[in-house]
């Protein structure tokens, strides 16, 4: 039996028909969605010309609609949001409190000034609204405008925020989006577009949003839809396998904007041990970086390098930091973090094995799979560091600053650093090893959406940068040699 339905929304048309079942039959996460194969022909925008209506809308009008939308996404009163939450309880790996808190925060994401900031900082509203003049050194006059594109979005499912950002980015860039809902967050994007439809059923921005579910790897659908005549960009979030899968459809005319799997690291300087009070403070910040959203985010702290030294005094310090961090982690409120709903079995088996010998690692907590702090007793992380999840972090003592670059690899996204002076010292080096974002310890998982992401500018990449130029033969050398 299915637990919930994921309808199909194609540019203002809601389809609740031709149901097929997905997810493990008889398991808690089974759901129904319309058979996408019946609607393949309706999914792509018929003609790129059909995007013209988006240019009749001013940016201020876009902000008006989004502001109304945000206000209508109220957790207490919006039935679609409530439905998305109920589905998330079954489909997502979040405990109820964390899930609820993400929906309570949703309206704020649509805040007028936040969205204006995203558009202005990441693209420049002038470029979205019209042609921006530039004169180049050779004398030509240039006008540049950012146009939208027809894009397919494969957002990550670890939190409804990703679906909201996807929709906001689409609207800001005046694009046409087909959003493939993630199976672990099947209804958030749907809830947002249905709410938008109730507010502004005929508005061009509603007419350029489609949301549906199909199974990743449905090659019949993909080979038909993922073609340059249908879409120009694919924005793919998420796991290695799914992003890798999408790359087979990349060809001239279809661009991949890859927000691929990332891990994050933490670096703590010796200043953390200056006083008991500072140590408590650092442990609290670190606990937040580990605990927020139950470590499901790519920005979550996992391996933590601590510049405390590997001598006896250093080990005593890091073990103390480990204990305090565990304590603070357990003390965080349930809407920020709580005991994981599921725990990776392989990781649990590794923790069990590690516990049988404390020569190289000590484990604080974790007996009840509630989360744990592994403290290395020498300058290497555990060999299973890539599995760390479910609020399990590994503190690693190091002797010198040269060693902390080991924290950063080609897959590193965020590096949380304490104190600020250490961040300044490291900021020109860490990016060479792969770091994409360096932030104050404790803020790894409270980013704003108005920043570059994963070392790229996804909003600029979502746009088509069109040039119109005027060349005056008196200023720009004419090839016909007048």
């Amino acid at each position, binding site marked *: 039996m299915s637990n919930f339905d994921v309808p199909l929304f194609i540019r203002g048309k809601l389809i609740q028909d031709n149901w097929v079942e997905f997810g493990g039959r008889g398991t808690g996460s089974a759901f129904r969605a319309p058979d996408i194969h019946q609607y393949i022909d309706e999914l792509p925008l018929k003609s790129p010309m059909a995007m013209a209506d988006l240019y009749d809308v001013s940016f201020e009008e876009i902000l008006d609609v989004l502001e109304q939308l945000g206000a209508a996404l109220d957790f207490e009163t919006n039935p679609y949001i409530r439905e998305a939450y109920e589905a998330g309880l079954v489909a997502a790996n979040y405990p109820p409190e964390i899930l609820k808190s993400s929906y309570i925060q949703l309206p704020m994401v649509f805040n007028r000034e936040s969205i204006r900031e995203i558009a202005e900082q990441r693209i420049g509203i002038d470029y979205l609204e019209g042609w921006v003049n530039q004169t180049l050194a050779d004398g030509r006059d240039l006008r540049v405008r950012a146009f939208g594109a027809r894009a397919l979005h494969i957002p990550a499912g670890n939190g409804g925020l990703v679906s909201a950002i996807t929709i906001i980015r689409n609207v800001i860039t005046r694009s046409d989006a087909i959003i493939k809902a993630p199976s672990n967050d099947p209804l958030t994007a749907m809830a947002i577009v249905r709410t938008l439809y109730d507010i502004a059923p005929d508005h061009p921005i509603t007419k350029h949003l489609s949301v549906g579910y199909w199974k990743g790897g449905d090659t019949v659908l993909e080979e038909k839809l993922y073609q340059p005549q249908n879409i120009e960009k694919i924005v793919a979030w998420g796991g290695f396998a799914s992003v890798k899968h999408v790359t087979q459809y990349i060809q001239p005319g279809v661009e991949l904007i890859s927000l691929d799997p990332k891990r994050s690291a933490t670096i703590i300087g010796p200043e953390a041990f200056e006083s008991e009070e500072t140590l408590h403070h650092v442990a609290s910040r670190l606990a937040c970086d580990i605990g927020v959203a139950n470590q499901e985010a790519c920005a979550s702290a996992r391996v933590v390098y601590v510049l405390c030294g590997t001598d006896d005094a250093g080990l005593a310090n890091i073990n103390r930091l480990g204990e305090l961090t565990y304590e603070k982690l357990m003390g965080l409120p349930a809407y920020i973090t709580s005991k994981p709903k599921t725990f990776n079995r392989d990781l649990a088996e590794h923790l069990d*094995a590690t516990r*049988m010998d404390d020569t190289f690692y000590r484990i604080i907590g974790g007996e009840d799979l509630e989360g744990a702090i592994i403290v290395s007793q020498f300058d290497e992380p555990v060999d299973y560091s*890539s599995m760390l999840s479910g609020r399990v972090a590994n503190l690693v003592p190091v002797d010198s600053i040269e060693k902390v670059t080991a924290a950063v*690899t080609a897959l590193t996204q965020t590096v949380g650093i304490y104190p600020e002076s250490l961040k300044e010292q490291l900021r020109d080096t860490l990016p060479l090893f792969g770091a994409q974002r360096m932030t104050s310890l404790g803020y790894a998982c409270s980013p704003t959406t108005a920043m570059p992401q994963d070392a790229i500018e996804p909003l600029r990449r979502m746009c088509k940068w069109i040039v119109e130029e005027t060349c005056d033969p008196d200023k720009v050398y004419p090839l016909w040699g007048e």
Partner: protein
Amino acid sequence: MSDQQVKRAEKLMSDPIEFFNRSITQMHMFPREELEELQRIAMAIRFKEHYNSVEMLRTLADRLGVSELKEFNDVVPLFFAHTAFKSYPASLLDGKRFDLMTKWLNKLTSYDLSNVDVSGCNSIDEWIECLDEQTPLETITSSGTTGTISLIPKSRTGALYNMEIWKMFLFQTFGKEPTEEELNPDVDVIWPNHAKGKLGHLRLANLIKTAFTGGDESRFHALYNDAIDTDLMFLASKLRAAASRGELDRLEIDPKLLARKDEFEAMQARRPEEMSKFFEKCTNELRGKRIFMTSAYPIMYDVAIAGLERGAKGVFAADSAILTGGGTKGVALPDNFMETINDFLGVDKIQEGYGMSEISAFHWACDHGHYHVQPWIIPFLLDPDTSEPLHREGVQTGRAAFYDILNESHWGGIISGDEITIDWDTPCACGLNSVHIHHDIMRYSEKQGVEDDRISCSATEDVQNEAINFMKEFEG
């Protein structure tokens, strides 16, 4: 429990071959209740012994407050997962800290390794050989994808004892007491694999040679005569782990291993010729002979295909002993793969078995395709998520775990990654009395579609090639 019962249990756990009078029929017709009573006593004795001699078990038992075992389920919290055999930091191998590796292994085995001198060891293979020479251990390895290798401290005498059991099951018939000829069979051994190495299945080569041919090299016919190098397998494992962590750019290769690049390349280059020679020998010199051959399904299948392509069909004597099993290792084989294997072999019977490196038993399949659990092994089915034991009644499917009362060298409580089904109540149609496991066995990782972190024996060759090819590129 009476003294006499304790004595019988001690006999069962130290020498099951003699306990059952060298008869596989007696082994599997023993009354179930009586056996379980002896198993319980033996388990309690073995636990006490290992509690004192295996430090990691002691640490675990102390932490859980377990001081004695009475009922079967008492042992469940003490099961070791595969992770126990690789809980050392891989950087110790990189740094060639074989002193610390020995200290770690010492906590996993019941033997005292504190006086082992490993000072001259320059590679993992040398270290393992050093342990082979100075201790009762014959450590076996298995490779993973997490950048490390598992090390299982088996004992040489235990492994050889197992070969005697293999012989019994390979040549005797259920329901009949063994004949003199069955107890001392005369066969050549076909070994469709590398002849040496420390991987579990390669360690078998030497054991089989000793047990089946009395060490006569001329009657042992390997596909490849060289070894799979453990240090090369370690590099392969590091390669995979580094790729998954985005750290390939900082992978370092041990200069000593790199210096052997030409040797490895030559080995790669020799293989096609060695394979041709192997099949030539099978179809000429060994044609029609009674042989013993064993390997995992995919390797048997590959060898059969390669043989059939060369026109070799029905090669061996019909009464040859053939053993396969070990799952399909994630390789998709055609439905009729067993027929293909036998087209090549031309034997009356291919036997199948189910086992794992960590326990000292291979469970033979009967004519009905059920694996009959050896009497020195206590099988458990656990809930795959919670690891709580399932009831020992009716038909149950769950995660397989085993307690091995025979093995001395390390703790015998092992939780597997396999999903198995046991029908506890219905006697097997074959007439044997022992607990039997249904034929369909699947790894949970396969079921969930996730990659196992083990490199299976059938993938050894590919993985080794990956490492050699990486070395070639490394030097440009």
